[in-house]
């Protein structure tokens, strides 16, 4: 009756207690079979479907849709009044339709669709993830969920997938509304390359927001209380998007303070350091890439990497970048954003898998 237990095991025990029955797998074939989910489909899809429905019906979805819609519409209002003037002299403007996104108020330069969306969109990511895991924990639903026949990672995968779907939906809707507004009110028809540029920008924005989603998820796994993770999440958002520039100067000032009466070399070194730190900020990565994608006249990322590039930029004849060249220019940015997202999600995933079920 010890057929199922290796002989070695038995020998190791001096006094063998009544042995266990072998795991109920009589046929060798059945024993080889891996542990299978009773669901016809992967467990994460069930969780994602439920979470998605929850998000769509939640108050925060409505609020965020309104906030993002407003953030897009206000600059759009200014853009549409200016775009007519541009359209008059259309021969000189390379991409009229896309100007909807990049034009804004002349008085307030920040009032542009792209920079507004870039500022507000991370909110989406944090809002849909900050209480994903610790919310379930405090409600007492997590042990019940994990005791269902699903893998543990199905929970976190499903939640990420649901968040990503909602974000895609919201951003696509907002961009669609802006584009539709342009078509209807202004009667401008976008060129094919402009459509692709807008889609690429949309994709970039989704990647950027999913970074914040993964960050929110990480907070919700690591921190016990949803209020704390919300606070930290929004705090980091404000710090990075609003005070990012100040932060860079501060860090550079602490790490390598500029000596009094320093020569041009010191100033250059300091600028180089600031630039390096700036490059590490996801908001910078996003803004630079968005600018290149939406404006074909931008031929390089805002801060030149080398002095040679800076000189070249000054000597360059103003020209327009073709679509593929623009994409090539932002490729490293996209890769960096995806990598950051993966790192955040992996951290959340590992932390969740190692956590005890009990709170």
């Amino acid at each position: 009756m010890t057929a199922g237990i290796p002989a070695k095991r038995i020998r190791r025990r001096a006094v063998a207690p009544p042995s266990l029955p072998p795991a109920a797998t009589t046929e060798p074939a059945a024993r080889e079979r891996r542990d299978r989910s009773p669901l016809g489909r992967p467990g994460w899809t069930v969780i994602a479907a439920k979470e998605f429905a929850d998000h769509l019906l939640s108050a925060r979805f409505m609020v965020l849709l309104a906030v993002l819609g407003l953030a897009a519409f206000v600059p759009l209002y200014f853009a549409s009044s200016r775009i007519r003037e541009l359209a008059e002299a259309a021969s000189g403007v390379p991409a009229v339709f896309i100007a909807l996104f990049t034009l804004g108020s002349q008085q307030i330069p920040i009032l542009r669709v792209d920079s507004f969306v870039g500022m507000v969109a991370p909110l989406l990511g944090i809002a849909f993830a900050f209480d994903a895991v610790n919310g379930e924990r405090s409600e007492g639903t997590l042990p019940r969920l994990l005791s269902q026949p699903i893998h543990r990672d199905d929970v976190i995968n499903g939640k990420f997938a649901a968040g990503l779907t909602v974000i895609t939906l919201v951003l696509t809707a907002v961009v669609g509304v802006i584009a539709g507004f342009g078509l209807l009110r202004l009667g401008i028809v976008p060129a094919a390359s402009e459509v692709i540029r807008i889609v690429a920008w949309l994709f970039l924005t989704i990647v950027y927001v999913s970074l914040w989603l993964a960050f929110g998820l990480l907070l919700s796994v690591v921190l016990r209380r949803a209020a704390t993770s919300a606070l930290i999440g929004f705090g980091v958002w404000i710090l990075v998007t609003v005070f990012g520039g100040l932060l860079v100067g501060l860090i550079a000032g602490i790490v390598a303070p500029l000596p009094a009466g320093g020569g041009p070399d010191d100033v250059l070194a300091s600028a180089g350091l600031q630039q390096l730190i700036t490059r590490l900020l996801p908001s910078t990565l996003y803004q630079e890439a968005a600018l290149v994608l939406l404006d074909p006249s931008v031929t390089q990322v805002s801060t030149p990497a080398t002095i040679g590039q800076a000189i070249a930029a000054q000597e360059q004849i103003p020209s327009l970048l073709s679509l593929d060249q623009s994409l090539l220019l932002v490729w490293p940015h996209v890769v960096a954003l995806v990598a950051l997202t993966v790192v955040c999600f992996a951290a959340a995933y590992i932390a969740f898998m190692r956590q005890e079920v009990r709170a």
Partner: protein
Amino acid sequence: MATTAPIVTRGLTKRYETLTAVDRLDLEVHGGEIFGLLGQNGAGKTTTILMLLGLTEPTEGKARVVGLDPARRPLEVKRRVGYLPDAVGFYGNMTGRQNLRYTARLNGLDRRDAERQIGAVLEQVGLSDRADTKADTYSRGMLQRLGIADALVKEPAVLILDEPTTSIDPFGVVEILDLLRGLVRERGMAVLLSSHLLSQVQSVCDRVGIFAAGRLIGQGSVEDLATTFGDDTSHVEVGLELGAPAEAERAAAILAGIDGVTSVAPPASAADVWRLDVQPAAEGGRVRQAVLAACAANGLTLTSLRAIVPSLDEIYRRAVVRSRVGAGTEAA
């Protein structure tokens, strides 16, 4: 030996860095019985349950739940085991029925089967009329009952309940325990429940296991445990109708004169009863007969006569004290 018991563990051990939460646990729970895992908070009950569900891995030892190893085949185990966690919660923005639907979907139940099953279990726990209101309007007792319904949706072969009666009013406790009894009778499930409220589960468990500091220090029916951990004394209560104080003295002498009675405690008030200690404990039945005969022979009017079953609290206290003494000797 071929144990076909739905829950079997052999030498099941869980160690955290310094703490041994569960220490070489040998347990068997059979179909159609309610097994109570009793112990204080932190005695290792929940850890044991989590190992049985494959939610945490044992450091050593083996477990078989419905014939499967939960550490290696957790999904199949979880498909067949209904679990009511300690302080169970539900999604407050969903109704009770929607919550159960989600569980049914996670278990891969066919939609039509699921609806029928959900209706049936809601009826069984008495929540049919509140099933379509939001779960955040439910009282603690209703959540607990919904939790049992939730565990039953998948039609489990084994039901594991962690502290099912905590934070429920006494009336609700009776309801839940009755419900469990009925379920075991109807479905022949194996039920493992953990509790630190000993007297509550005494009435409902067929067998109990006493858990202290990660070790199972005794298991069996309440009567068995009383024999194991008692001081070989049984107790008899005698109610007598007495007139003059002199009669009380006579009664005391008569009761003390019965063979096997070691002490007689007179009643504190007229309405109270006499308490007799009997040694050895097995003599209890004979002593009760002797009391009856002596009363008849001496013209004393009996109002009541009953054997006192030792309470689980008492047994538990003795068992814990004894295990501590034992551990102390080992250490020395």
